């Protein structure tokens, strides 16, 4: 029993990392949460293979991952449809499958979304640092040796055989998120919306923005009409703590949506994406279009509790 070698990386793709729900509670040390950018897909993936919902998975960006099972292993793929294949046969997503020893799982090119999650029954055995297995790429710690996976890396898993009998669990079709190329993100204005002109705020709400190729795990950079600050404002503000989903507007007036690799920021922030829509941020890719829609705090809470209700019910069914 215990932890055994389960998966060999044959090809890592452009960016595959070990991520769990994130490293929360250490912002006062300047430590960012990191974690899966689409936490909904991570949680469901884990539940499908009989893990705790906050266990670590592989976060696969866009394409190219290829892995071989070293033992019989229960797996599930959730999130973006990167056309997963098991031994060259298409693999149904959002469902748990047994990968036999020697089987090869590969991802080709994205059909929809940006990041897929590969959950392993028994999880990924890496040492948690500050209560999390997430990889902090910019500071090089956590996850698998603090870095993205490379060809030849071998992952280990805790008692994978105990999870095999959970095979065939699936998420109800109606609950599987559909990822298009046009996104509507619900936001609450603030914390510095009072620094913008009325026109600036209208422009923000009434325009489409393009996701640029300069986007990565630290932030989604958008291009669109310039959002103007009120006259006489300096370019930056006094640095303060930030959370993922906050939309900052630097001097050039082009929004950047902050993701989980940042703890502080010195640009003014016009609005913040609501909690229930945060998983979408992990699925937006360069070339996609984004619009922002203002909602009330009450609506934000309501949608968040709906998401939690879906997950609670799904857990009950399992």
């Amino acid at each position, binding site marked *: 029993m215990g932890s055994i070698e389960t998966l060999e990386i044959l090809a890592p793709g452009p960016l595959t990392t070990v991520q769990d729900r994130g490293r*929360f*509670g*250490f*912002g*006062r*040390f*300047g*430590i960012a949460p990191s974690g899966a950018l689409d936490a909904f897909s991570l949680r469901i993936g884990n539940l499908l293979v009989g893990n705790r919902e906050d266990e670590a998975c592989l976060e696969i960006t866009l394409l190219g991952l290829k892995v071989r099972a070293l033992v019989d292993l229960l797996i599930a793929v959730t999130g973006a449809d990167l056309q997963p294949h098991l031994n060259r046969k298409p693999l149904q997503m959002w469902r748990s499958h047994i990968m036999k020893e020697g089987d090869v799982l590969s991802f080709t090119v994205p059909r929809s979304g940006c990041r897929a999650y590969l959950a392993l029954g028994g999880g990924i055995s890496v040492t948690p*640092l*500050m209560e999390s297995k997430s990889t*902090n790429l*910019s*500071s*090089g*710690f*956590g996850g698998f040796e603090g870095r993205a996976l490379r060809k030849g890396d071998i992952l280990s898993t805790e008692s994978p055989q105990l999870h095999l009998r959970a095979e065939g669990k699936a998420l109800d079709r109606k609950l599987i998120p559909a990822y298009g190329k046009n996104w509507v993100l619900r*936001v*609450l*204005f*603030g*914390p*510095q919306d009072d620094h913008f002109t009325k026109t600036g705020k209208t422009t923000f709400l009434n325009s489409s923005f393009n996701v640029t190729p300069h986007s990565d795990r630290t932030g989604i950079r958008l291009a669109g009409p310039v959002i103007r600050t009120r006259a006489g404002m300096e370019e930056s503000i*006094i*640095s*303060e*703590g*930030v*959370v993922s*989903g*906050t939309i900052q507007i630097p001097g050039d007036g082009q929004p950047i949506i902050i993701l989980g690799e940042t*703890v*502080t920021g010195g640009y003014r*922030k016009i609005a*913040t*994406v*609501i*909690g229930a829509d945060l998983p979408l941020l992990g699925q937006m890719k360069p070339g996609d279009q984004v619009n922002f829609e203002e909602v009330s*705090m009450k609506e*934000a*809470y309501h949608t*968040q*509790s709906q998401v*939690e209700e879906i997950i609670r019910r799904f857990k009950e069914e399992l």
Partner: protein
Amino acid sequence: MLYEHPAYRIMGDRALLVELGDGISPLVNKKVREVFLCLNDSQVEGVVETMPGYRSLLIVYDPLKITLSALKERLNKLHTTIDRFEIPKPRTLEIPVVYGGECGPDLNWVAEYHKLSPEEVVRFHTGTTYQVYMIGFTPGFAYMGQLPEAIATPRRETPRTAVPRGSVGIAQSQTGVYPVESPGGWQIIGRTPLRLFDPEKWPPTPLEMGDLVKFLSIKEEEMARWEV
């Protein structure tokens, strides 16, 4: 200036920014530290984490455990009773630095900018006790002030893509140490052998917001003695 009442700024449905003053000053920052320590001490149900800044405290909360209005109510109450809370005295830490040469490639530029000798810049930098205003940017990066007016220097026009770990920099009226290699635009005047971030240690960074820091000039040969 310290505000009479804290200003609440909403950061989505999971975070609240509590602004306590309108500028960078030891007084405003001291107040942030008080509210930060007092709030942590009272362990409010639903508060996920708190992050102190120069003049504000960011409170991340779970909206399904505590509503915004309930959180604000708690904070208002805390504000009126904070005087009774005993604030622990800040610690004073010493950071040894090798100034100039390869360790501090911008020292000569800074000296010329102020028409001082490099030795005078070092005397100014080591002659002040700094307050850690906030930790951010990278793990363990402490923003410290106030730098003596005589050596306050603008950032580099072109930021470096990789500043080595331990580099001691100055920018405007602040100073700081880069605990991990990262991009950076501050003027690098020296390097410390101390390790200011270790993810496998607890606490992961020896510096905390509110600490007092003094820099100590050491020779390159002494570096090894400080490396732990």
